[in-house]
């Protein structure tokens, strides 16, 4: 049978041998403190790894690894499991030699171009904020049809961390930027691809954008841009430039490779939408989800993640009958702007086939659409910005499948 083996919980005879016979760890001396000065997960958690989707990319340096959402709790993504997206490979850069330059597309756009060391940046007023980062191509493989089996591959190009850094506004102020004319900002990385992306000045003026060195309490991980990256809340990950070496202010957008060849969304009429940056409201059930096998009938906690690039999540509804009827889920606090929000809802599974979906709504009132709705407007070739409602089919065997409804 496809049914997975649940932990035995027998009552035959006197009871469970795991109770009646004391385990070794109740009868011995364990390991000392600082066995690891920097600890690691249990050996029983070895299946919880980030992974590549076979065949998705042609090289492993211009590629992606997906976070194992099916195994995560709450909203914080462990930094070791943060999804990766590199364009020309990742580096472990010596922070003592890293510099951030700020300049203008022409000299008239600011008073003084400046250079900052990491030491200096870390002396400036800092903010610490929780935000999700989602690749614009997350769920992109699913635009046309079901292509991958698990939520790791359908939605795993998203992670959420507490980032710490300096509001970019402070740095631009120090350079004397002419905010009237300089309405666009270019972020540039120090890696081989020297990734460049245009960001609207409005997001800097609001105080939201910051240059981050901290992630989940420690420094950024090398795979995520150590020692400095741009944090652009609500905007697709490619704009969160890693290994950030330069910020330029300008009076026009830059039409960079990742704004003119990639991260452009092909519509039905053959036009590409350019400068699509916002990640619209979206959600997904992570437990249960594709590729899992439920152990038994009975009670389950349906759990998932919701987010919006436009602010806070207001509500998440869950359906277990493929979208015919919906119930509103509990949101775990804190519900933060442009951060993941964890939702949970009770479910008693009667053993019959069930189709589980979640539908998020954000504080602007925007409602996450169905595949029918997104495809009606955008077709199936966009690659980017697929925020359609995800369906998981729980079969009688307990095995859960990624499906799309017709």
């Amino acid at each position, binding site marked *: 049978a*496809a049914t997975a*083996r649940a*932990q035995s919980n027998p009552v035959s005879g006197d009871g469970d041998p795991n109770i009646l016979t004391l385990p070794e760890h109740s009868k011995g001396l364990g390991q000392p403190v600082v066995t690891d000065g920097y600890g690691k997960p249990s050996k*029983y*958690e070895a*299946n*919880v790894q980030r992974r590549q989707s076979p065949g998705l990319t*042609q090289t492993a340096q211009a590629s992606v690894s997906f976070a194992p959402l099916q*195994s995560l709790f709450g909203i914080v993504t462990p930094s070791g499991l943060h999804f990766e997206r590199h364009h*020309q490979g990742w580096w472990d850069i010596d922070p003592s030699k890293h510099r951030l*330059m*700020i300049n203008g597309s022409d000299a008239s756009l600011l008073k*003084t171009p*400046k*250079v900052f060391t990491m030491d200096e940046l870390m*002396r*400036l007023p800092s903010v610490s904020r929780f935000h999700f980062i989602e690749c614009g191509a997350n769920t992109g493989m699913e635009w046309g049809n079901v*292509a991958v*089996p698990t939520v790791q591959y359908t939605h795993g190009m998203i992670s959420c961390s507490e980032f710490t850094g300096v509001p970019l506004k*402070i740095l631009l*102020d120090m350079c*004397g930027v002419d905010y009237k004319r300089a309405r666009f900002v*270019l972020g*540039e990385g120090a890696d*081989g691809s020297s990734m*460049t992306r245009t960001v*609207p000045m*409005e997001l800097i003026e609001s105080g939201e954008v910051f240059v981050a060195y901290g992630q989940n309490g420690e420094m950024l991980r090398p795979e995520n841009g150590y020692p400095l990256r741009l944090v652009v809340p609500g905007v697709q990950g490619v704009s969160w430039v890693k290994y950030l070496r330069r910020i330029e202010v300008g009076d*026009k957008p830059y*039409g*960079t*490779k990742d704004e003119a060849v990639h991260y*452009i969304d*092909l519509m039905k009429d*053959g*036009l*590409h*939408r350019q*400068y699509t940056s*916002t990640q619209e409201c979206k959600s997904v059930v992570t*437990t*249960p989800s594709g*590729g*899992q*096998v439920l152990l038994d009938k009975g009670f389950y906690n349906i759990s998932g993640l919701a987010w919006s*690039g436009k602010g806070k999540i207001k509500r998440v509804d869950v359906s277990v*009958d*493929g*979208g*015919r*009827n919906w119930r509103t889920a509990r949101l775990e606090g804190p519900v933060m702007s442009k951060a993941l929000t964890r939702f949970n809802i009770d479910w008693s599974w009667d053993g019959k086939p069930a189709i589980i979906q979640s539908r998020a709504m954000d504080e602007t009132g925007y409602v996450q659409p169905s595949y029918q709705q997104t495809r*009606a*407007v955008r077709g199936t*070739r966009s690659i980017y910005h697929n925020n359609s409602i995800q369906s998981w089919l729980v079969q009688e*065997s307990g*095995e859960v*499948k990624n*499906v*799309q*409804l017709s």
Partner: protein
Amino acid sequence: QSTAYPGVGRPATPKEVAAWDIDVRPDFKGLPKGSGSVAKGQDVWEAKCASCHGVFGEANEVFSPLVGGTTADDVKTGRVAKLMDPTFPGRTTLMKVSTVSTLWDYINRAMPWTAPKSLTTEEVYGVTAYLLNMGGIVPDNFVLSDKTIAEAQARMPNRNGMTTDHAMWPGKGIGHNKPDVQAKACMSDCAPEAKVGSFLPAFARNNHGNLAEQNRLVGPQRGADTTQPEGA
């Protein structure tokens, strides 16, 4: 302003700005003076690019093609006809990119893949010219330069293929603010009985590896053993 944070930061020198400010915009701001012919570009291409992107930019077994899918007619209209054909599978670089500045900037900053920023300005001009030539955008005797680049850009097959008519730019000046897809939050008797329209075919069951090894060994679930047929 900078007196607010004494001791932090210093002015950049002109040479420092020159060393790092390499971006080139669609209006060619940032483009250094210089030139390169298609012929010179072909030499660069064959020496430094063809191994990955193919002798004709058609890519080899590994990399996506840069060239192909565009026609002389596209060069006239500025719209790539194949993009309007939903059955056409691939999308080459030249089918998508609307600006030569983008190619120039990217090749200059990131190519060749294993030695980015190693090309001279002349090599970048030349190899960009050669790419455009392979795409039928400029003639064999073309010399791409800071003077002729606007002319080349005006012939890009997808130059009229971009739209900003959307609500996904989080600032002013581009697009608008009304989301294109509008859904409602119906709560009961919303949709007809659900029918599954797409799922992974049985032969793809193990394509992403054994899912039993991609799920935690404890919890409400196990991972399906995809080395076995379903239900086995």
